[in-house]
């Protein structure tokens, strides 16, 4: 899963729902290589390590809070089509107001079970389903880690445009990916009891935990694909490894929204990925789609290792069954 909802408990500050990336994968389908995207998960299953992913942005709170995250995620194939990933994130919350206190700590651990259900190399199409579990109580409450589990079944898909006709060959390096998930909190609401400082009366506050649609996509232009399958322009090697892309990473509360509202939040992330043979590096801007999503343009960067290339006969192969090597017909470092 690539989206988590964070509600921070920083004193005096109400932290809005913000996206956070933790989990990524890469996939090869025929001529097409889908890189590990930073904002959303890619549509495939593989052995890989994202370490680290770092991001920095200001939340949509008033006043805003500077949030910085550093996260890691490890994905292991159990069979050729089934993988389990484990992710963890450490968050630093720093209020813009210097008189307010900050906070930092781990967010809840997250585990994703992902199964590739369909793969069509000829049409460069792949689809997977997954279930992500955010384990409540494993993170630090002072940065907003919830005390309950959150379950998110998700559908992932990817389609390369390599089957376009010759007249549109310059568009063949384009690919789109997407995901649609539905986050279901393990508790419908949380009730807290307190004392009104003015009257001394007991207060009861109930916060409803919404069910949230996590959705997003990417459109990407693969320079490696252009060189190896469309036209070799003799460009510098560095350029031939670039994959410029734009991601959208959005969350829409759907039900149980009495206290959360139903406003869609999220970011549009333009950026670029450099894809090597054994690892990739990506950097993207985080552009909030509205005031509730953030108060400035943030940044996210990630170093990602292809374990199937680094150690194909060891940690990079499925635990059960033989690895069926993907086609990767272009040069990566």
């Amino acid at each position, binding site marked *: 899963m690539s989206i988590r909802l964070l509600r921070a408990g920083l004193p005096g500050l109400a932290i809005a729902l913000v996206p956070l990336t933790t989990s990524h994968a890469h996939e090869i389908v025929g001529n097409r290589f889908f890189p590990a995207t930073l904002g959303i998960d890619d549509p495939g299953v593989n052995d890989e390590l994202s370490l680290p992913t770092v991001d920095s942005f200001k939340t949509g709170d008033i006043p805003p809070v500077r949030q910085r995250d550093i996260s890691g995620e490890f994905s292991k194939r159990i069979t050729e089509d089934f993988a389990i990933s484990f992710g963890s994130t450490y968050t630093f919350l720093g209020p813009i107001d210097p008189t307010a206190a900050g906070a930092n700590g781990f967010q809840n651990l997250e585990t994703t079970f992902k199964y590739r259900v369909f793969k069509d190399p000829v049409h460069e199409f792949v689809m997977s389903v997954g279930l992500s579990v955010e384990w409540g109580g494993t993170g630090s409450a002072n940065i907003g880690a919830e005390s309950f589990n959150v379950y998110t079944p998700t559908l992932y898909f990817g389609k390369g445009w390599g089957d376009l006709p010759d007249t549109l060959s310059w568009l063949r390096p384009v690919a789109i990916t997407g995901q649609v998930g539905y986050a279901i909190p393990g508790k419908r609401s949380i009730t807290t009891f307190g004392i009104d400082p003015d009257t001394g009366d007991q207060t009861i506050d109930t916060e409803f935990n919404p069910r949230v649609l996590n959705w997003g996509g990417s459109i990407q232009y693969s320079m490696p694909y252009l060189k*190896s399958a469309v036209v070799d322009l003799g460009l510098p090697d560095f350029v031939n490894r670039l994959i410029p892309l734009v991601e959208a990473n959005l969350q829409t509360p759907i039900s149980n929204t009495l206290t959360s509202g139903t406003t869609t939040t999220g970011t549009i992330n333009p950026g670029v990925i450099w894809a090597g043979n054994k690892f990739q590096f990506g950097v993207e801007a985080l552009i909030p789609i509205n005031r509730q999503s953030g108060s400035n343009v943030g940044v996210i960067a990630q170093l990602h290792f292809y374990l199937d*290339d*680094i150690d194909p006969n060891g940690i990079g192969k499925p635990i059960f069954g033989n690895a069926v090597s993907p086609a990767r017909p272009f040069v990566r470092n």
Partner: protein
Amino acid sequence: MQRSSLIGMILLLLLATGEANAHAMLDHAEPRVGNKVASPPREVTLWFTQKLEQAFSTITVTNAAGQRVDSGKTRVSGSQMSVSLRSGGTGTYHVNWHVLSVDTHTTDGNFTFQVGE
């Protein structure tokens, strides 16, 4: 040892252990992918990023009419693979390749080049 140093050592170890094991990928080709040549080439040569196994590594080439114009005998030398061509006239040639690298991973792909016109 600081945590950052430990992570760095782990990453270096991961990279080092796989030095000879990455997939065989197309580095470049002659004729070049998507480019035009004046006359039908005598052979197609592909260069890969890893050494190849002779077995199961093949190139097939078809001309604009969809007829196979390769000799059917793919030659492999190290990371290079070639196949001789019969003259197939002008137009768009389609190259399909499939390789088995020394670490037993397979990769495949395809591209075109133009002859004449």
